[in-house]
């Protein structure tokens, strides 16, 4: 969305998903909302989750915040899960540590789309192209079918999601902070 700032960004927000697959569009919807509120030094982008693009977006940036939709076995649509990992030199995260944080390799990598954030993170670690700190907000989806509208439950969580993401980015404007 926005071009990287001329100065090195201190944070990047990446909204992953497709706006034409209903709740999968929560990442781009959040990115569009944050775009208007983000402060200088924060780069906002949306992504289809393709791993090399994620590496390009977050490599060497002190803080990367990623927002994506997830399907859970016992769904509670609109519920927000937060996972944080320190990846800066000296705080190397082992695969076991990443798995414990919920970012381990899950099912076999299915595709560049199915190669999700966990696989992109493992590739980034193999190539030393991680952000300093990675925070993932996963939003439980109700409907990933074709269509351009979020489900009511996921749409309803958007204000909360904006608030927690802005707090994470340290850019909450006066009066709208947590």
């Amino acid at each position: 969305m926005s071009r990287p700032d001329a100065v090195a960004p201190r944070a990047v927000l990446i909204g992953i998903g497709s706006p034409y697959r209903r709740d999968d569009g929560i990442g781009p919807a959040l990115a569009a909302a944050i775009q208007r509120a983000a402060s200088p030094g924060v780069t906002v982008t949306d992504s289809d989750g393709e791993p090399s693009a994620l590496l390009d977006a977050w490599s060497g940036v002190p803080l990367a915040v990623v927002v994506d939709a997830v399907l859970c076995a016992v769904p509670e649509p609109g519920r927000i899960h937060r996972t944080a990992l320190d990846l800066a030199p000296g705080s190397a995260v082992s695969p076991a540590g990443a798995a414990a944080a919920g970012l381990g390799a899950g099912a076999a990598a299915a595709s560049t789309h199915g190669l999700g954030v966990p696989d992109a993170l493992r590739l980034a670690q193999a190539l030393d192209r991680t952000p300093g700190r990675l925070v993932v907000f996963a939003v439980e989806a109700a409907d990933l079918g074709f269509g351009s509208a979020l489900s009511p439950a996921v749409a309803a969580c958007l204000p909360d999601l904006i608030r927690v993401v802005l707090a994470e980015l340290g850019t909450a404007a006066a009066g709208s902070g947590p």
Partner: protein
Amino acid sequence: MTHRSRQLRVSALARIEGEGALRVVIDGGQVSDVQLQIYEPPRFFEAFLRGRQYTEVTDITSRICGICPVAYQASAWNAIESACGAAVGEPVAALRRLLYCGEWVSSHALHIYLLHAPDFLGYPDVIAMAADHRDLVERGLRLKKAGNAILEAVGGRAIHPVNTRLGGFYRAPAAAELAALAEQLRRALDDALATVAWVAGFDFPDVELDCELLAARDPGRYAIERGQIASAGGLSFPAAAFAEHVTEHQVPYSTALHATLDGRRYLTGPLARYTISSAQLSPVARQAAAAAGLGPACRNPFRSIVVRAVEIVYAIGEALAIIGSYERPGPSFADVPPVAGTGHGVSEAPRGLLYHRYELDAAGRVAAADIVPPTSQNQAAIEADLAAVVSAHLDLGDAELTALCERVIRNYDPCISCAAHFLDLRVERR
């Protein structure tokens, strides 16, 4: 049911673009059925486009795929501008070709390095490959980034370009902006040539496809963003005659339609492009191809990785040539007033021929849309290849046979995000 009965399920068919499912049935020692089951977003988009303004179409179709959005824009421009009787000037056409070159470089680098090469080097995925061959993966990512740099400079951003519009571009880049890109592309050309030499050394099973090959052909150059349609067997027809030759029919197990060319199975994509137009490649690309052991035609799907590498060389050279002679077009777009009628357009998506047809009313509203992506055209040919490969390797255990089927599918770089979703593989032995 007197035969030995076994069933194997694999949770995911790895390393293809998107999602789908494959079912192979082996009955009494013979392959009785191969079904590539895919579920197809373009069908949804066709319905979604009806009633929209003709000027909105390319912004919507670009969302069909994050890997090849320019292809979905280009075929739509070609179809709608043809329906309206509009023609863009050569400078705008050159910018479109430049943009499309960026997509070829980016998409092919992704497939070669992140998805396909691990098959030849014996790794389960690129993450394992990166642990041993970090320099190679870095080279692949550099190449992909060079392609993305073109997309960003011309299209405004790397995925779903926003600077494009019917008739051309909202803003044509300044010559200085493109000149800055040229240095990166010159380095990328070295990476691309090294890629051809690298993949040429892989071990290729000896396989030849006997089906018809279909691709766009553009007189005097390698077809990318426009062209007539040609087959290796000598057919030649305009996009408007696509439906006279290509017939789509439904199969019960997939939402992607199967296609036949004059009643026969056919293939689109790098092998078809190369076989039909290899003489139109640049001298440096032809030389790289020859050094890699490619003749004037290539029908071995395993060698498609070499053809893709050669096409990266060509696309970077083409991008450098366009940038070298670039003059910023006066108006960055041509006016395209709406005209009631039907338009057809094709272009060469990284995965093959992409056909669009639109019917517009006098106000420019879309009355009907038809999108035929390369992966659904290739579906029958991929199934036939799988059936032949499985028949020739019935002695393999289920795990090895499954792995081989996955390799066969990846040879075609199926963009199942254009044509399907999750891929689940099942082999049944009865």
